[in-house]
């Protein structure tokens, strides 16, 4: 069987804050429809690398990139790259759940309002699908107009996931998405990874080797800004 084609390809990528390299000369290919985990100690560069894939580090003072970062066949730093479109296609879930002080429904359709303003009539249906994918529909279907901030931390993280999934990203980047959650909520999100990989490719940063063992199709370990051999 042929290996799936890579959706992410890094060639000699070095990421620096000022003169200090945090990722040093990394070559890497990540296959489609897999769960790939990036693990390693704090400061090893895994989160910086993850955010570079959707150019979320651009505004950090002193941040610079050398080498080639190719995502979905496109050089993300090419002048022709539409950063907003890139971020729609490459969703990012943060460590700490962040929901807007709006209703549950408004949170889910938040990105849709900007990317598909002409499809408002379909928003309820799209919101339902995204909430189902995030495993939250059954818990919130009767209170979609309730404030999102009233949800538990775990539910808020799944709401943030639904908001990202509503945009139908081709790649989903998860930056320690369970680090601030209780074990039960973490388990729910881990289970979701297995079902989500049929729709998109997942790159998951984690500190926890046991979590990487549970969810990963491929594990990549970082140390001092480099990929450890044999991972």
């Amino acid at each position, binding site marked *: 069987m042929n290996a799936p084609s890579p959706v992410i390809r890094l060639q000699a990528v070095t990421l620096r804050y000022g003169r200090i390299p945090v990722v040093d000369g990394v070559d890497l290919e990540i296959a489609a429809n897999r769960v790939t985990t990036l693990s390693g100690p704090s400061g090893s560069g895994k989160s910086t690398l993850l955010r570079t894939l959707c150019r979320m580090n651009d505004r950090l003072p002193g941040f610079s990139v050398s080498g080639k970062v190719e995502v979905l066949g496109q050089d993300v730093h090419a002048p022709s790259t539409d950063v*907003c479109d890139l971020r729609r296609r490459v969703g*990012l879930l*943060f460590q700490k759940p962040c929901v807007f002080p709006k209703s549950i429904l408004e949170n889910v359709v938040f*990105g849709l309002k*900007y990317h598909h303003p002409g499809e408002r009539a379909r928003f309820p249906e799209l919101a339902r699908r995204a909430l189902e994918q995030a495993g939250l529909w059954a818990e919130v279907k009767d209170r979609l107009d309730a404030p999102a901030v009233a949800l538990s931390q775990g539910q808020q993280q799944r709401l*943030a996931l639904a908001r990202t999934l509503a945009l139908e990203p081709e790649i989903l980047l998860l930056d320690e998405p369970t680090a601030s959650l209780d074990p039960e909520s973490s388990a729910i999100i881990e289970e979701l990874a297995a079902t989500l990989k049929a729709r998109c490719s997942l790159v998951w940063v984690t500190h926890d080797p046991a979590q990487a063992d549970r969810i990963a199709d491929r594990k990549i370990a970082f140390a001092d800004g480099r990929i450890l051999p044999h991972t």
Partner: protein
Amino acid sequence: MRRLLHSEIDFRHPFVLITGLLTALASGVVVFLFLFLVIQGQPAFTRMGFAFFSGEEWIPGETYGAWPLIYGSLVVTGLALLWVLPPALGCALFTSEYLRPKARVAMKAAMELLAGVPGILYGLLGVSFLAVWVRDVLGLIDGNTLLTASLLLAVMVLPTIMTLSEDACRAVPSEYRDTARALGLTRAEVVFGVVLPQALPGIAGAVLLGLGRAMGETVAVMLVIGGLDRVPLPWYDITQPGQNIPSKLGREAAEALGSGLHWNALIASGLVLFLMVMLFSLAGNFLLKRKRA
């Protein structure tokens, strides 16, 4: 006393007693001011009745109709807010969202410096340049008009509204911006879709503070408003001279002190000003609560 404090607070503790007395003193000043205005202004209300609010003639010793003053206060303040809101909010958003940290600090320092400039200096600027400019541009005989006063007030409250609005924008958690950017929103969409709605209560507070200053500003307005106790004809012609309550008080308070009904009528005007500012604050707070709900 006990019913006003948290249950675990011992009101006999010296620190609680002292801070409580100071709080009572501060609140007492407001109550005293209100009572002073009501008691001293009451003879004018009794003598004039509703004509005090609706009358257009103010002739000391004969009749006291405050409508031109109320009209002048509302028009000058309303126009000032109309002129100042677009540049103040634009400047606040630009400074908060687009400027690099060093440039932002420099801009804020300049605005805070301007916010502290005494009103009389603005008044001198208004007399020297603004009134002359309005006269020449509009071809008027006299540049001291309601329009001139509103433009000068707009310049005066711009730093206050801008700097407080900028603070409100900066107070929006950066996670909201990052989340919106990660969803693929453009910078403008992040500003108008996330930052501005979240900063709105703070911006409204800034506007209310600006409105308070605009309504109460005396000396600068007195120099450029024209000092005519008359509602313009037609009523919307803001290129005519007019009068507002603080300007009237500033012009006549010294000579009217102890003169009976003239003094009472001026104090009654002050009470109207006090109530108008309070009404606007309450309306602003009400609107904000509805927005938050």
